[in-house]
């Protein structure tokens, strides 16, 4: 995901803001990292450039 996407993402649980933590980036593109709910504390992983913003109870299905 591009870092600019942060402007339009929110925590799916309560629509509050997310904080970005980056492990790996390629220019503007965030490849690995996580998004953290500033209110809920929920952690949403970013893997292979795809943030997984499913609520925790829907997240495990493959």
């Amino acid at each position, binding site marked *: *995901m*591009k870092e600019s*996407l942060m*402007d*339009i*993402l*929110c*925590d*799916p649980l309560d*629509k509050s803001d997310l904080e970005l933590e980056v492990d790996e980036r*390629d*220019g*503007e*593109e965030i490849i690995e990292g996580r998004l953290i709910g500033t209110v809920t504390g929920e952690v949403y992983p970013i893997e*292979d*450039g*795809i*943030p*997984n*913003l*499913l*609520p925790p109870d*829907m997240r495990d*299905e*493959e």
Partner: protein
Amino acid sequence: MTERTARDLAARRGVETNVYQPAEDSGLLADAIEKRGRGRLLEVGTGSGWVAARAAREVPDVSSVVASDLSPHACRAARRRAVEGGPEEAGVSDSTGDRTEPDGSGSLFDVVRANLVSPFADDAFDTVAFNPPYLPTDPENEWDDWMERALSGGESGQELIDPFLEAVGRVLAPGGVGLLLVSSLTGYDAVLDRVDACGFDHEVVVEESYPFESLSVLALTATGGSSQ
């Protein structure tokens, strides 16, 4: 399209059958985006990402594209397409596709794994497009895998359409437009009733008839608001 033709099509193309591949309905939604899409666009339930890629690459009024899907398989397929380029079915040279980052570090569009519009901020999008899973499915015949979830709209065919209509207004910017694909198999009038109840005016942007169904894409605008 029917589930049978979807599977036949996938088998014929020798592709994995857990991600919905572009078909007539995809083409129709892309045509509607060409006519009405603008600004920042979200495609909900992007599947293979084909529609999102066409929007990002070929619609000048669309400035950026986000594609979302519930399925991890669809998200990975869409992400590959976002990074590698556009709708390869086009079979034409790349002269219009210069919006891809040349060094491969960027992508044509962003992919987010999401349930409908739930992780997107209020007023975030000028256009939200959705080709929902719409086939009415007998609960006893649901086969419960990712392809089933890409096709089945539950017993009524409307299981994903209702929550979409209830939620999409929140993420549409003032004057924004929703583009919803509706099949006669779902029941056109039933969907229109819901559209109305959720506070949208509608107009038909494109429509097409096939032997077993007719497909339309509706432009939805907030009742009393203006779309352009």
